[in-house]
């Protein structure tokens, strides 16, 4: 039967984005324990782990069509949100192959790929695309291969070149980011682009994460969850457009917080690419409103405990300062302090009305 796409949703202006009950229950809730601190939280990217969002290499859900449209709007305003340095062309083709193979294998009712040597035929039914092209010949596509395929995927992507025992972010499609700029960061090394993150450098998180990634093997992708909070279901919270979305942070009140405040979770996946030896980093963004979190008993209690004990440096870095206390006091009233199961799974199969 396939996925029922919500084709009319928006992530700007009237913000009509909503999650169905099924989308809430499959949400990759990022807190497996009552406290949160940075760590090298990297694990193999396979089916287990507490959310069906992990079942496929690249998760496609009911927001697919609307997110691809949102991406096109952002790129129309600012084409530099997609940039790849010229030496990364082999990694561009690797990315196209990985995405087309994964999507057509995992969602055959929506995507199909037929290969005859270098003559490829790609069909994307939700977006109404039917394209024959020559693999390896960029002139047979309407734009670069990386841009072509990431315009047809949910979430941001970056390409890391590996050299001198380091990773360099030498390309990306970045339109749904939590406040970082590809135009500013492109070409930086692992520690450079992570420069602004507080505390994590000092406790060795980035040293160890880099060592882990340098040894990443083809065919053994890994993942981690990262999170922040966003006012309104807005995907494009770029520093470029901060003058436009910054004022949203002042609009939160005790009355409207449950509808306005969204937990923003990034399912980050890392794939070694076969020909280029580059690493593809997927940053798949999921948004859920506070009122929808509250419908899951375990999640509302856990979110309360995590927010109440969050280190002040993280509150500030993640931009929560103006509404953090409001969220904590609202959630405190719904938390009896009872012990919660470890792990991120919701522990309930249905939602109250």
């Amino acid at each position: 039967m396939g996925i029922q796409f919500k084709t009319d949703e928006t992530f700007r202006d009237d913000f009509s984005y909503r999650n169905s009950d099924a989308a809430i229950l499959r949400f990759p809730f990022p807190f497996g324990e009552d406290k949160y601190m940075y760590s090298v939280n990297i694990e193999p990217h396979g089916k287990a782990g507490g959310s069906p969002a992990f079942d496929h290499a690249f998760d496609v859900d009911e927001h697919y069509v609307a997110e691809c449209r949102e991406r096109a709007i952002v790129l129309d305003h600012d084409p530099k949100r997609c940039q790849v340095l010229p030496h990364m062309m082999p990694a561009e083709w690797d990315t196209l192959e990985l995405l087309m193979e994964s999507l057509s294998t995992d969602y055959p009712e929506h995507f199909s790929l037929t290969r005859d040597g270098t003559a490829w035929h790609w069909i994307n039914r939700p977006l109404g695309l039917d394209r024959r092209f020559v693999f390896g010949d960029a002139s047979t596509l309407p734009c670069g291969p990386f841009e072509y395929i990431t315009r047809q995927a949910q979430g941001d992507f970056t390409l890391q070149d590996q050299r001198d025992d380091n990773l360099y972010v030498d390309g990306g499609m970045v339109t749904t980011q939590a406040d970082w700029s590809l135009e500013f960061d492109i070409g930086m090394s692992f520690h450079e682009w992570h420069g602004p993150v507080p505390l994590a450098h000092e406790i060795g998180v980035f040293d160890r994460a880099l060592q882990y990634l340098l040894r990443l093997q083809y065919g053994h992708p890994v993942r981690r969850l990262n999170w922040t909070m966003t006012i309104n279901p807005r995907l494009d919270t770029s520093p470029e457009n901060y003058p436009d979305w910054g004022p949203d942070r002042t609009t939160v009140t005790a009355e409207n917080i449950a509808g306005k405040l969204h937990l923003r979770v990034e399912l980050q996946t890392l794939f070694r690419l076969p020909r280029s030896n580059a690493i593809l980093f997927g940053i798949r963004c999921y948004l859920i409103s506070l009122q929808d979190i509250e419908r899951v008993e375990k999640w509302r209690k856990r979110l309360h405990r995590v927010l109440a004990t969050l280190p002040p440096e993280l509150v500030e870095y993640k931009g929560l300062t103006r509404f953090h206390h409001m969220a904590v006091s609202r959630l405190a009233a719904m938390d009896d302090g009872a012990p919660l199961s470890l792990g991120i799974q919701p522990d309930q199969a249905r939602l109250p009305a």
Partner: protein
Amino acid sequence: MSDQSIKSRPVYQSLAMDLSGLRHLLVSDSPAYRFEAPPDREVEVWFVAAPDQEGRIPPSGTVRERGFRSPRHLIDRLDHRLAQERMGLRLYVSGTEGFLWDVFNTAQRAGMTRQEIFQCQSGTQARRVACVHCRTFNHGVTTTIVRCDGCGANLFVRDHFSRRLSAFMGVKIDAEVAGEVPPAEQAYS
């Protein structure tokens, strides 16, 4: 915003000759530079005249020295020179941070590697600030907050540095509440 130490910015050293090089070129954005080469090695020096020269090319002391009117003038000529270079050149750069990375990027485009380029910061600590919103470069910034030449936003100068842009990031400080702009402090001079 509580940026701590600047992880994206390198720690610059003083310059010392890399004896594995066959030819050595020092470029400086001022006539005052410091470089000590072993007596048996030759170093070519390109330097920018002091501003009081007002466009005159200063006479050079030796054949190994060459003056330029401005950093831009020097880098344009360097671009041309590097296109004709072969393996074995070592490039030493002395000057303000913006100049160091403008030269570095020019050299990389010409095919030089990180290992062949040496940088030493000297002169003003003033920052070049790239507005993340409108992409205008603001030069010679000495304060924690600067009004963007391009879009007029009051930018907070973040401690996040891009070598490619040769600039720090400027982010609108009162994006959330218009007019909430603390007084700018003198910080980099």
